[in-house]
C-alpha cells in the first residue's frame, strides 16, 4: 500500500478507520443460510484455466488420432501403383498389364486380340459383330470388364474394331471370343475414346504372350496397333526402367533421337537425378500418327517396360461435323450477301441481315480453326515417356520401411488436421473479430455510463 496517497490526510484516515460498522446479525444469518460447502476442485477451475487445459488436450487428441491413423491405416495393403510396379520389378513377378488394342489385326479378322484387361477395364463392345469376327487368340480374362479400343463412325463407313474381352471380361487365356472385329457393315456406333491406363498390380496373372516375353518385363512389340486409316488422336504413356544413371542419360538422348528420326519431336524433357544414383526423365513426345506404333515399340526397348497405356479417340465424326458446319455457314453467308445485293430489303431488315452475316463470318472463322486443330491433333500421337532407374523404383519403398511409412502417414494426417484448423480459424476469424468489437464497444459504453452514474451526488 502506498503511503504517499495518505500523506497530509493521516488524521482524516484515522478518523475514518475509527468508525465502526458491522453488518447486522440478521444479514449474517440471511447470507449464511445459502452458503455452500467446500468447493469442488474441478469445478473451481476458471474459464481461463480450462482453456489452458483444453489446448494441450486437443493437441494430444489430434496427435493420438494421427498415430492411430498411421498405425492402423498403414499403406502396406494399399500400395501406390508406382510402388507396386517397383515390387514387381524387384521380385520378378508378373504384373497385370493395362489393356491394349489390336486394331488392324482385329479388323482383318486374322488374329484375336491380345489385349489385356486391367482392373479398370474400360468398356464393352458397342459395335455390332462384323462379318468376319475372329476368335481371340490370346485374349485375357478381365477383372471387371472388357477392354479395348473402339473405332466406329457414322453412315456405315465405320471400321469398328474391338478387342479384348466381352462385357464381363469372359475371355480366357485361349481367347474364346477375344476379338469381335467389325468391318463396316453400316453399323452405327458412337465414336468414343477408350482410356485404358491401368496401374500395375503386384501378383497379377500374366498372359501367355507376355509370359513368353519373359522375366516380368512387358514387351509390346506385337500387342499394339494404332489405326492409321482414320483421323485418330492417340496418346500413350510408357514407363521404362533402366539399370543405372548412365543408362538413364543414354536412354533419354536416345528417345529424343528416335522420335526425331521418325519425324516427330520432343515437346518437353525433364531430367532429374540424385547423387545416390536415382534418376528420372519425363519426356513429352510427338510423333506422326503413322509412326506411333514404331515409336512406342522402339521407346519400350530403351529398357525394361514396366507400364504402358494407350488411348485413342476417333476424330472422324468431329471432323465431319465441323466440315458440315463450315459448309452450312458458307451457304448462309452466300445467301446473306445475295440478299444484301438485291436491294429489296427495308432498312431494318438490311441491318438484321448484316448482323447475321457478321456473326456467320465469325463463326466460320472459329469453326475452320477448330477443324484445323482437329486435323492437326489427328495427325500426331502424343507419347509420354517416363524413364527411371531401377534402383529408384526398387529401393524407394524399402528405404522408408513400415515405420517410415507410418511416420509419414502420421505427419500427413497431422498436416491435414492443421489445414482444417487453419481453415476453421480463417472462417471464424471475422465472426470472432465482430464479437470482440461488439464486446469492446459495449464494455466501453457501460463504463462510461457507470462513471457518469457514480459521479453524480
Amino acid at each position, binding site marked *: *500500500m*502506498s*503511503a504517499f*496517497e*495518505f500523506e497530509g*490526510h*493521516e488524521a*482524516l*484516515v*484515522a*478518523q*475514518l*478507520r*475509527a*468508525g*465502526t*460498522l*458491522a*453488518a*447486522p446479525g440478521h*444479514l*449474517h444469518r*440471511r*447470507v*449464511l443460510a*445459502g*452458503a*455452500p*460447502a*467446500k*468447493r*469442488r*476442485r474441478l*469445478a*473451481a*477451475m*476458471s*474459464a*481461463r*484455466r480450462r482453456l489452458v487445459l483444453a489446448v494441450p488436450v486437443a493437441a494430444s487428441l489430434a496427435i493420438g488420432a494421427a498415430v492411430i491413423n498411421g498405425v492402423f491405416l498403414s499403406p502396406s495393403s494399399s500400395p501406390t501403383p508406382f510402388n507396386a510396379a517397383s515390387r514387381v520389378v524387384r521380385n520378378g513377378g508378373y504384373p497385370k498389364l493395362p489393356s491394349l488394342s489390336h486394331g488392324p489385326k482385329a479388323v482383318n479378322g486374322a488374329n484375336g486380340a491380345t489385349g489385356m484387361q486391367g482392373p479398370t477395364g474400360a468398356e464393352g463392345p458397342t459395335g455390332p459383330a462384323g462379318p468376319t469376327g475372329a476368335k481371340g487368340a490370346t485374349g485375357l480374362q478381365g477383372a471387371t470388364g472388357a477392354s479395348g479400343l473402339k473405332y466406329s463412325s457414322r453412315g456405315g463407313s465405320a471400321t469398328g474394331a474391338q478387342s479384348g474381352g466381352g462385357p464381363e471380361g469372359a475371355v480366357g487365356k485361349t481367347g474364346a471370343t477375344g476379338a469381335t472385329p467389325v468391318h463396316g457393315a453400316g453399323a452405327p456406333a458412337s465414336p468414343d475414346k477408350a482410356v485404358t491406363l491401368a496401374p500395375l498390380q503386384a501378383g497379377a496373372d500374366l498372359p501367355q504372350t507376355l509370359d513368353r516375353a519373359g522375366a516380368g518385363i512387358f514387351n509390346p512389340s506385337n500387342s499394339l496397333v494404332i489405326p492409321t486409316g482414320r483421323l485418330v488422336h492417340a496418346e500413350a504413356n510408357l514407363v521404362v526402367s533402366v539399370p543405372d544413371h548412365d543408362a538413364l542419360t543414354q536412354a533419354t538422348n536416345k528417345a529424343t533421337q528416335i522420335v526425331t528420326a521418325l519425324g516427330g519431336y520432343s515437346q518437353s524433357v525433364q531430367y532429374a537425378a540424385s547423387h545416390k544414383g536415382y534418376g528420372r526423365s519425363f519426356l513429352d513426345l510427338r510423333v506422326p500418327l503413322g509412326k506411333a506404333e514404331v515409336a512406342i515399340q522402339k521407346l519400350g526397348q530403351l529398357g525394361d517396360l514396366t507400364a504402358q497405356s494407350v488411348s485413342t479417340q476417333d476424330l472422324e465424326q468431329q471432323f465431319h461435323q465441323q466440315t458440315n458446319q463450315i459448309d452450312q455457314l458458307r451457304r448462309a453467308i452466300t445467301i446473306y450477301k445475295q440478299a444484301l445485293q438485291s436491294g429489296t430489303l427495308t432498312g431494318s431488315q438490311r441491318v438484321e441481315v448484316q448482323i447475321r452475316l457478321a456473326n456467320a463470318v465469325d463463326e466460320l472463322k472459329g469453326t475452320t480453326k477448330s477443324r484445323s486443330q482437329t486435323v492437326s491433333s489427328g495427325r500426331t500421337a502424343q507419347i509420354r515417356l517416363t524413364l527411371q532407374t531401377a534402383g529408384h523404383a526398387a529401393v524407394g519403398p524399402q528405404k522408408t520401411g513400415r515405420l517410415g511409412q507410418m511416420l509419414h502417414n502420421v505427419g500427413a494426417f497431422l498436416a491435414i488436421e492443421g489445414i482444417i484448423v487453419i481453415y476453421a480459424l480463417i472462417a471464424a476469424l471475422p465472426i470472432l473479430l465482430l464479437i470482440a468489437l461488439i464486446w469492446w464497444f459495449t464494455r466501453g459504453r457501460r*463504463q462510461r*455510463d*457507470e*462513471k457518469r*452514474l*457514480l*459521479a*453524480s*451526488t
Partner: protein
Amino acid sequence: MKPVNAMPAAIAASRPGRSQPFADVVAENLDAVYRYLVYLTGDRVAAEDLAAETFEKAYRGWRKFDPHRGAPRTWLCRIAHSVAVDWFRAEARRQRREDNYVRDTEMLGESVFADGFSPELDQALRRLTPAEREVVALRVLLELDGPSAARVLGISQTACSTRLSRALKRLEEEVGDVRV
C-alpha cells in the same frame, strides 16, 4: 490504532485457500462488503439488501472463483460494485418518478456511514459522490492495495490513485466547510 500502511489481518486471513469453505469467506468478508456498500450507496438499508444480493451472486459463482487471480475480498467487492451500479441505475429511474426529499431529510439526523462518526464527518461524506466514497471505502476502510482496488473499480491503478487523492482532499474540505 493500526498503522495506516500495515497489512491488515483481515486481508491476510482472506488470502486464497484452495478449499476454503464459502461460509468462512462470508464470515471474514461480510462486514467489509457491507461497509463498502454503505459508503458507496450512502444507505444502510439498501446496503443490506445489496450485500445479501452480492453474497447470493458470489455463492452462485463460487465454483468459478479462481483464488490465483485475487483475494476473495477483491472478488466480492467486484461483485458488490456491479450490484451497486445496477442499484444506482434503478435508483436513478426511481428518483425521476418520485421525490426523495422526505427520506433524505429524515436521514440527516443519524450517522449513516459508521457508528461513532462526528456529524461533520458524516455530513461531509454524504456530500461526496458515490465514486469518491467508493474509493475511500476500498483503500482506507477495506485497505485493499492499489491494483486490487483498481480492479474492483474497473480503472487503471493511476486513475484509482488520483481518484483517492481527490476524494480525500475534497473530504477534508467538506469537513472544514461543515465545521464553519
